């Protein structure tokens, strides 16, 4: 198990390093890269001074070396537009994205497993078809549009929930107020993430249902519910666990757009603001952080996977 863990951690670090290489060089070798971003209304001397200040006169390999050396020490550089350390900006925004992401992830997982199970039990019945319709819709409806529709319905028409932001001004940050702000963005995000979980749960349960030990359990005369929850469910959850890594990646992608719709001051919105202002250090930092979280989550999933299913360790 130790060598398995070490190998996975090593692989994760390599992937993360390659993420930094790919994103850094993509940005710095592009015709519209950082050097081109520093030119608004500046005289030649001012421009030169700015290039020098941001270290953009160095050859690109030197720039990468310096940047990476900083990253390793936790220094992600300084925002071009705000003049603040990128690390500070990320630290301000990350908790908001984690709150939103966690709420959406838990909702999507719980509802997804529930619906997937119900669908598998009533295979090919109308419940199954209804669940499959819901998850196909979740895959097809653009999250940001669903968000807009939700705002129209729940904020504009019914006035039940706030349309945007993370907390009302003057509420003093009361928990209930924060929760009310969380409902719409987390619900919409969860709806778009759920289909993966539903699909995997359903097919895993049907797969397990054909297994010999389940047939044996049924042959012993156990009730269908007992067979399902005592025997089939545990094994069916293994593939569901595996899909959670994928869902986390999708979560970050989805949060970029959803945060913009709902004015949620998270990592995704920071990245959008940075993209609009061509604030390269911030985009690189946000992307690297998102990549790091994805790598860590996948690592955790791999570990859990190996704990739950010992066969994996001996690959």
């Amino acid at each position, binding site marked *: 198990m130790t060598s398995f863990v070490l190998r996975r951690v090593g*692989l994760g670090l*390599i*992937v*993360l390093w*390659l*993420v930094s290489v*790919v*994103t850094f060089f*993509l*940005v710095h070798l*592009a*015709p*519209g*890269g950082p050097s081109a971003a520093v030119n608004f209304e500046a005289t030649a001397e001012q421009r030169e001074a700015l290039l020098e200040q941001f270290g953009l006169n160095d050859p690109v390999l030197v720039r990468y070396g310096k940047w990476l050396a900083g990253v390793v020490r936790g220094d992600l550089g300084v925002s071009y537009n705000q003049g603040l350390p990128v690390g500070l900006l990320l630290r301000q925004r990350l908790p908001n994205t984690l709150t939103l992401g966690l709420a959406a992830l838990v909702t999507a997982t719980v509802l997804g497993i529930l619906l997937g199970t119900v669908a598998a039990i009533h295979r090919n019945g109308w419940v199954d078809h209804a669940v499959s319709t819901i998850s*196909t*819709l979740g*895959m*097809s*409806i*653009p*999250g*940001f*549009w*669903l968000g*807009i*529709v939700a*705002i*129209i319905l729940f904020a*504009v028409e019914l006035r039940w929930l706030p*349309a945007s932001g993370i907390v009302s001004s003057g509420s003093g940050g009361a928990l209930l107020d924060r929760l009310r702000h969380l409902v719409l963005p987390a619900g919409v995000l969860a709806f778009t993430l759920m289909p993966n979980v539903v699909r995997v749960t359903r097919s895993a349960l049907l797969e397990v249902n054909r297994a010999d030990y389940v047939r044996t359990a049924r042959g012993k005369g156990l009730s269908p519910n007992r067979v399902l929850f005592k025997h089939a469910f545990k094994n069916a959850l293994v593939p569901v666990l595996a899909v959670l890594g994928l869902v986390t*990646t*999708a*979560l*970050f*992608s*989805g949060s*970029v*757009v959803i945060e*913009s*719709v709902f004015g949620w001051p998270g990592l*995704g919105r920071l*990245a*959008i603001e*940075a*993209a*609009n202002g*061509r604030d*390269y250090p911030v*985009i*690189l930092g*946000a*992307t690297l952080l*998102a*990549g790091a979280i*994805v*790598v860590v989550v*996948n690592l955790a999933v791999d570990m859990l996977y190996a704990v739950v299913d010992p066969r994996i360790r001996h690959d």
Partner: protein
Amino acid sequence: MIDAAPLVDRAAVSAERRARRARLWRRVRRQPLGLAALLVLVLLALAVTLGPLLYPQQPNRTDARNILKAPSAEHVLGTDELGRDVLARILAGGRVSLSVGLLAMVVGLTIGTVAGGLAGYFRGRVEVVIMRLVDVFMAIPNFFLILVVVTAFGNHPVMVIVTVGIGFWAQMARVVHAEFVKVRGYEFVEAARALGATHPRTMLKHVLPQVAPQAIVLASLGVGWAILTEAGLSYLGLGIQPPLASWGNMLQNAQSYLWLKPVLAIYPGLFIAVTVLAFNLLGNALRDVFDPRG
């Protein structure tokens, strides 16, 4: 190549081929949802190509005296905040969104198939390098990757297509890779090699056709994904730029008028949802047709 003709009964071959086609058609007919989706897509394609020719309103003409008008005989779906005709913009925007989606899928599928194919066919070091790169691209959440590329390379429509394609080549490569590894092991591939077929010929003539059904399913789902991504990107102001309409950027301004005219935000999204739904249903139906066991 050895001429195999004398060994094969041509009549039997063509009968077998006919029977296979008949079986395929029977499976196709069992997919009413998929056929309906195909019909919707054909109608949409006709609407966005012929529609602008038949509908008299210009998509980009602003009219300060007629902003945010309700539907009328003149403006079938009303006008937007600049007095532009909403239906004309939907039709023009659909042309852009569908083309971007299709072309981005072609970009992603091409890169993914070449990369995944090479990795799965040659294995060894080639496979290690390519699949590690796939891991890297899978680790960067799509939208962040797309933001990086769009910021660095700009948002000319061609760049938007390439960017969205780059956003999902890795997923394609993973599937194609697995298929190539599987098919590579079959005896007929070995036989082709033994008969002297070159590597490119073996890949293109013998392995690729076996992988094609999977690739077609991926392509259909991929178009849906690409349309969603382009829409999101354009909604954020980073994709297709106004005045050129796309379904995504039509929603960009609509949000400012939610309280005044919410319906502006409904139409473009409805078209995106129906189109993507149709591509997804078509993809699922194709999967069932090609793999009736699944």
